[in-house]
């Protein structure tokens, strides 16, 4: 299974986990990215995410295919939220399963690291006094 979604509604880790039920797999690795209350700079009021939908799904598909080529992963799920998110809400869920844990850990880390580098999704941090597009400036 490859399950890729960009949603403007709340993400559910339990729903994601329920889909990872391949009988050949003894390990599931799930990464859940949440909105932090603080950056190194200041207190975060909210995050605003936007995506270039069509291209973002294509780039997620590339990650899924790479993961399946590199590791014995059966299922991969990537769900990313867009819109306005408050502190404590889930921004991203990545889940992979594999026969054994080592592949699951490695594949999950590869997927989130690559997503952060290649998938066209952007977040703006909104502070009490101002706002900033993350990573925009050197």
């Amino acid at each position, binding site marked *: 299974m490859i399950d890729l979604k960009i949603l403007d509604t709340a993400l559910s880790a339990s729903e994601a986990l329920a889909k990872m039920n391949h009988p050949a797999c003894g390990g599931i690795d799930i990464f859940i990215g949440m909105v932090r209350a603080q950056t190194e700079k200041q207190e975060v009021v909210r995050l605003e*995410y936007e995506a*270039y939908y069509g*291209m973002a799904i*294509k780039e997620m598909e590339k990650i899924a295919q790479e993961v399946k080529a590199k590791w014995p992963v059966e299922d991969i799920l990537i769900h990313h939220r867009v819109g306005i998110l408050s502190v404590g809400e889930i921004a991203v869920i990545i889940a992979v399963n594999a026969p054994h844990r080592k592949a699951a850990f490695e594949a999950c880390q590869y997927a989130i690291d690559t997503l952060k580098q290649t998938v*066209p999704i*952007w977040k703006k941090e909104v502070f009490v006094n101002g706002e900033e*597009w993350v990573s*925009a*400036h050197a």
Partner: protein
Amino acid sequence: MTINILAFGIAKEILGNNENSFEVQEGINVKMLRSFLIERFPKMKSLASFLIAVDGEYAAEDVVINPEHEVAVIPPVSGG
């Protein structure tokens, strides 16, 4: 020729809209378009980097753009 350029994140704020229309020379490639945007919008220079996507794929500098392409400005991504 007229081309439409999608812009996202900080690039949307710099260019003004999610969809922007520009008059550019025939045969313009990705490298030339990047220069065009920097000249027209000097704030683009303040970005850590920016890429151009053509039809939903990151495009190399020598890709030639025509009005049928879906062209997008991709500032540094920050998903996750």
